[in-house]
């Protein structure tokens, strides 16, 4: 009985005392799925440089995060995978200051290691019998993919429309899909998939903006993080993951 009671106390203490770490400030960052690996590293570097600031990262499709922010979810910084989503937030008055582009990304085709289906271009995706995964059109990655396919003049019937780019990627990783249109950064350095480049004239470049969320609790710390991301050090990390300069 005593052990159970102290166990309960521990749980209460842990859940309740998130941001009260005697002196440290917490900055909540909502970022697009494609930024997952890169931002983890950026966050680590930032926290080492600013020991008094604690970062909390959440990753999901930009569109999904935008809805959460609009509904009032606590957030200090928002990093989106496309400008349209950011603009919607600006229009609804949820952004403080001006959004700043901090990276660009291209699309790429993710295939299974060894490329068993011998895919070399977007046109190959129209092959009948191929299991192709695209992002849903409601998420930025999906819109970009549709745009690229249109530029290439290719009609693809996907097997499924993933709710975010990481979900699409994981289907290829699991071997459930033959190919998926994802970001170049998703295939860069990823040993579980192989990346097939998309022709320049067909490819779409996504610009990633970052901004402070309006009514954020700690403006200065949020600004510090945004500045770090756009700084040389932040950019170096992003570049190492395959993101292009803004």
């Amino acid at each position, binding site marked *: 009985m005593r052990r159970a009671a102290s166990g309960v106390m521990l749980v209460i203490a842990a859940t309740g005392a998130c941001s009260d770490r005697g002196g440290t400030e917490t900055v909540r960052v909502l970022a697009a799925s494609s930024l997952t690996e890169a931002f983890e590293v950026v966050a680590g570097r930032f926290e080492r440089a600013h020991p008094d600031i604690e970062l909390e990262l959440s990753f999901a*499709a930009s*569109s*999904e995060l*935008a*809805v959460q922010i609009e509904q009032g979810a606590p957030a200090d910084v928002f990093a989106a995978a496309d400008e349209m989503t950011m603009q919607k937030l600006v229009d609804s008055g949820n952004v403080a200051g001006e959004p700043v582009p901090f990276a660009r990304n291209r699309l790429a085709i993710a295939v299974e290691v060894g490329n068993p289906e011998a895919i070399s271009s977007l046109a190959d995706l129209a092959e009948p019998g191929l*299991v192709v*995964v695209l992002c*849903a059109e*409601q*998420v930025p990655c999906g819109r970009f993919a549709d745009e690229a396919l249109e530029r290439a003049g290719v009609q693809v019937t*996907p*097997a*499924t*429309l*993933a*709710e975010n780019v990481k979900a699409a990627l994981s289907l290829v990783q*699991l*071997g*459930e899909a033959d190919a998926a249109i994802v970001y170049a950064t998703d295939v860069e350095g990823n040993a579980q998939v192989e990346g097939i480049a998309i022709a320049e004239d067909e490819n779409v470049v996504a610009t990633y903006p970052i901004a402070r969320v309006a009514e954020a609790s700690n403006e200065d710390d949020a600004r510090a993080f945004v500045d770090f991301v756009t700084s040389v050090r932040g950019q170096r990390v992003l570049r190492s993951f395959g993101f292009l300069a803004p």
Partner: protein
Amino acid sequence: MSRRVSRRPPAVALVLAGLALATFLVAPLLGLLERAPWRELPGLLGEPEVRTALRLSFVCSLSATALSVVLGVPLAWVLARTRFPGQNVVRALVLIPMVLPPVVGGVALLLAFGRRGLVGQWLDQWFGVRLPFTTPGVILAETFVAMPFLVITVEAALRSLDPRYEEAGATLGASRWTVFRRVTLPMIGPSLLAGAVLTWARALGEFGATITFAGNFEGRTQTMPLAVFLALETNPPAAIALSLVLLAVSVTVLAVVGSRVLARPRDRHVGAAAVSL
């Protein structure tokens, strides 16, 4: 002269019940109704995507319910009427989908029935059958999460059924199958129906396993919950409208079927001799 002494329910019970109703039922419902785009509703509902998602949801949830009944009733019978080593383990396995997070269930289904899955690879190689990203895949995912509800309900009903009725049937010359069909099943009818309604409701609302295993494609695998989730990102009013539709339909069905099934008195396993003279 007699007077009716009615005792009021204890205050504590009333307060807690009221809290439960208010928090979990009334508040969310009011929230939904308050933000509903009443004017755009008819237009939104007429859209083909909405109808497609609705129709797919119903076809799949009903199929999943039927499949759950066909597979679940024999399973419940074996658990209730037979005894074999490891029975408790089997029962725990049957109930696992109830405690598993649905997405985890979806991943498990992929690992089992996906293209490279344990069973799936043979289905693909030998029969050319692929389950992920197909409508049958949706039905499989929904059955996976919903069937335990049916098994649990039916097993309990079978356990509480007086076995002497089945013995009586046997002495009248009925084979075991006939006894099951004409005595056992009808006598657990109400429980079976209640279990089926619960199963159907669970299947209708299923999201995590469906989106993970069956995927999301309009007309083929995009059920209502998936449509609502995605609509929320780009068109919140549409999402709310879809939610309302799903809610209205579910409430109607539950009201019609549920009141006759879930609120009726217990199954008839009390002997006829208990009748008043």
